[in-house]
Every structure is written in C-alpha cells, then in structure tokens.
C-alpha cells in the first residue's frame, strides 16, 4: 500500500516563499529532516487531507545560512534546534533559540562529521 508522495526540488532562496504558499493553502507542517551525504540534504514535509508533499534542497557546507520558517509555522522551532545541535547547520532567526543547549551530547554535532562506513 505505497502512497503517492510528491517531491519538489527548490533552492535555499525560495524556501520562505514556498513555505508561505503552503501555509496559505492550508497545509500542516509534518517534519523537517536532514541527511548527511557529500552535502547536507534537507526535506521539509507538508500534508493536507492525507496528500503528502515535500520540499527538497541541499547546502554544501554547514556554515551556509538557512532562513528559519518558525515565523510562519511556530512549531518548526523544535525541529530547527534539533538540526542545529545534531548536524551543526546554521539556521538564522529561530523564534526560540536554545543556542546549542537543546541536546547535550558528548560529541558535538555527531551527525555532521564525515560519514564513515564501518564493518560490523
């Protein structure tokens, strides 16, 4: 029972206007996640009446600035703080900013390090 999931590829600069479009059409923010490949690949997922859509863009380095969407969807501040703590991404103007104290881990930015394949 695989459901249809639509992917929309965008650039970082279009992020805020696309998210505002979704908000005006009545979508709810479902989740924000990141994958560490050669670059950082982000996915912002939205849903309305079981129709699932997600925005996809990448940043090359952890220091590249990404605008925050917590002004449009207030609940996004939790996801963005988590991305900052685990991956070291630079997200600007989060509504409530924990400044690195959200998850205190023994290694800083555990996911942002180089991806090494280890044999079991």
């Amino acid at each position: 029972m695989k459901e249809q999931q639509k992917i929309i590829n965008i650039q970082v600069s279009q992020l805020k206007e696309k998210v505002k479009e979704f908000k005006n059409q009545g979508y709810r923010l479902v989740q924000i996640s990141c994958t560490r490949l050669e670059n950082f690949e982000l996915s912002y997922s939205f849903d309305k009446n079981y129709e699932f859509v997600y925005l996809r863009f990448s940043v090359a380095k952890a220091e590249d600035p990404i605008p925050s969407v917590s002004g449009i969807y207030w609940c996004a501040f939790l996801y963005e703080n988590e991305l900052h703590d685990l991956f070291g991404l630079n997200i600007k103007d989060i509504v409530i900013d924990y400044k690195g104290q959200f998850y205190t881990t023994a290694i800083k930015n555990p996911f942002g390090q180089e991806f090494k394949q280890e044999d079991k």
Partner: protein
Amino acid sequence: MTKRTIIPFGPQHPVLPEPIHLDLVVEDELVVEAIPRIGFIHRGLEKLIEKRDFVDFVYVAERICGICSFIHGMTYCVGVEAVMGIEVPRRAQYLRTIWSELSRIHSHLLWLGLTADAFGFENLFMNSWRIREIVLDIIEETTGGRVIFGSAKIGGVRVDIAPEQIAAIVKKLNKLEKEIKDISNVFLKDPSVKHRLVGVGVLSKDDAYALGAVGPVLRASGVALDTRQLGYAAFDEIKVTPITDPRGDSYARCVVRIQEIFQSIDIIRQAKEKIRVGPIEVKVEGTPNGEYFARTEQPRGEVIYYIKGDGTKFLKRMRVRTPTFANVPALLKVLAGCQLADVPVLVLTIDPCISCTER
C-alpha cells in the same frame, strides 16, 4: 506588576512516566509561559543505522519505546518494504493489524491509569491497570513477550496465531468490554473527576491544526484526521472512522481515548471474520535503494519513518518523527494561562512518551 517566579517541573516528578523538564514562569499560581527542555535520555539510536544492517535493525527499532513498541517495528518494516517493492501476504497484514490494535488498547488503558493517578484517584488507577494485565497476558501468549513483541519482520511476521487462539482472544475481549464500560463510567460521570477535567486546557480547532498537533489531541479539538485511513496493513479492507469531539478540553481528550478502545476491540472482531489462510512471510532478496516516508498511527498520533537506502546493506539514513515531538508545541500553548495545580494533568493529557521523542 506582580512578581514572576520560575518553578522547575521535572525531570523527576511522581506523575511523569519519563523525564522531561519544564521551566514554568508563574505569577501567583497562574502559569504565564512554559519553556521545555528535553534530552535526558537521548540514546543516539539513529546513528546506530551505520553499524547494523537493515534486516537486523528491526530489533533496535522495536526497542525505541516500551509502550508503542510493536508499531515502531511495523512502521520500519512498512518503510523498507515500500522502498524494495516487497508485497506482504494477506494473512501477515491481518496479524499485524490485530497486534497493532492490541497495542493501542493496552496503551490507552495505561494512560487512563496514569491520568487517574495525576489527580489523586489511586483506586481507579489500580483498577485500570488490573484490566490491562489481561491484555498483556493475551500478548504474551501469542508473541512471547509482554511489552516487546518481537514479532515484526521485513517481509511479514515471525510467529503465527492459530484460528482457535484468535477465537479465544475475541471471547476474552468481549468479557473485558463490560469491565472497561464500568471503568469508563467512572471517568465520564463521576463529579470529582469532571471537576478536574472539564474546561481545563482548551485547545481550539485552528490552534491545534496550525501547531502541528497529531493523534487524540488533534481529534479532540474537532479535526477528523486518522492515519489509519491511508490503508496500510489490513486497513484497506477494514474501514476506520476517526473519532472526534468538538470541545477541545482535557475531558474531550479522555472521551476520545476511551471510545478508541471500543473501536479497537471492534476492529479485532472484524479482523477475525476477514482473516485469510496462507503464508505469513515472504523471502527478502536484495538491498534497498531509494527513499520513502512511512506513516502509521500509533496510540499517540502519527509516526513517520524516513528511510533512505543506497544499494548497500547499511541504510544511508533512518529518521523517526514521533507524535509526542509534534505535540510539544500544543502543550506549551495549553499551559499558558492555567493554574499551577493543573500542570500535571495537562502534561499527561497529551500522553507524553519521552523515550520515543528522544530516541
């Protein structure tokens, strides 16, 4: 202007099942705002995907949480099966549905007990958990473990339930239904319980939708969204109507959860009529290559597993977004403006499962 004090709530508190910390800013017993702090039991389970191959990872996925354990394992399997294009046999779909609904019944009975404990009604707490023991015995008889089922597997399920066992389960649940009706009469009609729940923590329909709330918290504010309608497992043949309540206060959340217990017992009855005979698993060959977001309905709301594979036997990324993580903003909105003595009841009405939230 009255003086503001900051009172720390948690991480250790008699009413909380798991540690979460809230800084409550109060003015003379009225809470003005709440600032959350999580991260006390962060185990880094998402990083473990780099060390365990995708078939063995089911054991880790099941142990993310103790209460919603089977549905975590099942959602992981649904995600990997969608990426690899594996078709699960019908009998395995029905068995997965039966175990998911048993999981939902025991989780809601646990929640009823904890809520009764939160407003001090210990006798009701013990009675709810006495009924829950019977459900746990059914689960142990069929899968081998009381809390961690160990029966989810990529390609199907690991153990089978014989037809006479399914009939025995339905008979036990029929007897249980009368006892649950007696308990729910106390929750819904007793004046002292109503005094603590009615009108406390109202969440309006627009707020619940805009803040991204999921599960019974969203449905108790009048929005009819239930991920079981997507049709995973056997839910394409068993229709589920979302149960909603327009009031939006803690009493409405209690009503929605109690009615979901009766709905789950009915779903198990329907599954018994419709289950087919046949194999319970299918052989898995190859490695996953692609990505997919798998969504199912846990007792607490909608859980999402993002699976990304690149053709090797180690997955590239597995990300879990649990329902309690999505309900925390709704909790912060509800806490602003409530009395200090209502804080434990409100924290429990969103059904916090912090070990899920922090993986």
